[in-house]
């Protein structure tokens, strides 16, 4: 039984507990640096934080509940375009436009999730991929509303009523607050009955059902929460950039968000933020490598996945299982 000690979670204080703060300290360091230095780094970090909103949601569905969706960009697009159209063509103010955008995306998530979440494994993944592609096609083809490839410009910045946040640092501060609130929410979900139901679905659907967990229902709940975050990210994006086109929410958004989730730490609380910041800043860090920039970036990603397969934050997370030790056949 002594071998168990190594994998027993600390019930008393241990120095490793302080390590749990490391992902936060690194993230705070990056954001703080951007805030102080200003300029280009601020823009990078602002985009990273918008992505963090997206990835926090993806993590609830993929990390907590262990499902796969390649189509969360659809909800970003639905909300982003709703925001864009309502604030430009209909001259709404930002906040109600975002609210309607997110609500519409959540409604779509419900309508799409209800039938597709009954599919298993590959079918679900294929289904979600289709959702993303269909949304993309609609944003291209429905040009009377979306302006097709041209996109919609002149979207007003974030703000409440007449007060608009236009400065880079103002946007950065606002996004930090939003990301902190969402991170706090995801931490609370994780340690609640709802979160345990998500983790139960992730661990064993059969066992979850045998204990009375309505698996279909919790998958749908997780999908909707995830879609709501994606939607919010989509709207934040269009208001920060002031412009939207179909490419903004294309397949690269899916690839980037997956990379962030896996690098940061899938299933952890700090992972999405850390992953979003690091993946956004890495390519730039390697600018000195000139032509080999992409190569260096790829190499670092591969090294990360080899040495931290559950992501960076998982290295410091008390709630992520260590390697399997003995016992089971």
């Amino acid at each position, binding site marked *: 039984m002594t071998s168990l000690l190594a994998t027993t979670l600390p019930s008393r204080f241990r120095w490793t507990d302080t390590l749990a703060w490391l992902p936060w300290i690194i993230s705070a360091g990056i954001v703080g640096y951007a805030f102080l230095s200003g300029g280009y780094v601020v823009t990078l970090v602002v985009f990273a934080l918008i992505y963090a909103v997206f990835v926090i949601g993806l993590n609830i569905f993929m990390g907590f509940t262990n499902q796969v969706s390649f189509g969360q960009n659809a909800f970003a697009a639905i909300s982003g375009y709703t925001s864009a159209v309502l604030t430009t063509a209909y001259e709404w103010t930002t906040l109600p436009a975002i609210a309607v955008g997110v609500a519409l995306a959540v409604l779509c998530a419900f309508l799409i999730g209800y039938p597709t979440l009954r599919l298993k494994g590959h079918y679900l993944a294929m289904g979600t991929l289709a959702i993303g592609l269909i949304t993309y096609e609609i944003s291209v083809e429905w040009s009377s509303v979306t302006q097709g490839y041209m996109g919609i410009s002149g979207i007003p910045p974030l703000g409440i009523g007449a007060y608009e946040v236009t400065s880079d640092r103002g946007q950065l501060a606002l996004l930090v607050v939003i990301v902190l609130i969402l991170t706090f929410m995801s931490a*609370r979900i994780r340690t609640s009955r*709802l979160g*345990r139901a998500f983790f139960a679905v992730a661990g064993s659907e059969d066992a979850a059902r045998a204990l009375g967990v*309505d698996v279909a229902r919790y998958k749908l709940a997780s999908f909707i929460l995830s879609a709501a975050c994606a939607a919010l990210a989509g709207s934040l994006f269009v208001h920060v950039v002031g412009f939207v086109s179909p490419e903004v929410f294309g397949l690269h958004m899916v690839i980037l968000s997956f990379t962030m989730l896996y690098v940061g730490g899938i299933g952890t609380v700090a992972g999405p933020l850390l992953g979003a910041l690091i993946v956004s800043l890495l390519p730039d860090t390697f600018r000195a490598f000139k032509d080999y920039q992409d190569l260096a970036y790829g190499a670092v990603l591969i090294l990360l996945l080899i040495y931290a397969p559950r992501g960076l934050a998982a290295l410091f997370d008390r709630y992520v299982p260590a390697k399997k030790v003995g016992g*089971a056949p």
Partner: protein
Amino acid sequence: MTTLSLKNVTRRFGGLVAVDSVSFDIGSTGVTAVIGPNGAGKTTLFSLISGALAPSDGQIFLDGRDITGIRPEDVAARGLIRTFQLVQLFQNMSVLDNVKAGQHLHTRGGIFAALARPGWARREETQIEARAWELLEFVGLSDHAHAFATALPYGQQRLLEVARALAAKPKLLLLDEPAAGLNADETKRLSGIIRRIAETGTAVLLIEHDMTLVMNTADEVVVLDFGKKIAQGLPEEVQKNPDVLAAYLGGVEIGHG
């Protein structure tokens, strides 16, 4: 008082009749064991009772209500909880959280409770935590409460699965080969645990290969062979039943499996 009642329950897989018109009743107390050679249809029978599989024919009643073909989560909500032949723990959670998750049916609260944490939700959380510790104490796992479920040796994983099932407050508990992979000591302890579960008023239906365990724990035994019920009765009777002896001698195994 009858808790579970099977009437001609049948399940076919293509041409194979895995469970063939099985009928029996079990009472609201005591331990009933289902035994039979490998492939006799025991696990399939459990899956039919717990709603994981739908019967091809026949009916299943729990406390007089027809539960044939309803979803497993609805069967669970009516107080019938099963464990699995191959342990199905929530590997991504601690031992303690596994048992907390087992109390899902007896707690409430969704996204609002998770985020706003009103007083009732906090009290509920305290209660289920206390209950989880009790159950871990009961099966002897409280020292490992904070370990990950997968870090436990196999025998203890089985005990954890039992504790998690008990957390759901079953009226009827179905255990599928709980002693598989346990050593003699652990099996003896398990036998004691099963007896104590039965004493607290939970009916237990048990699939078991280990004859010593069956003889020491079961009040009644049902024997399956090739999907058919070939005997039912007290352990001592069944042990001497010629059909049963033939089934076991004719099969690959004798006694232990």
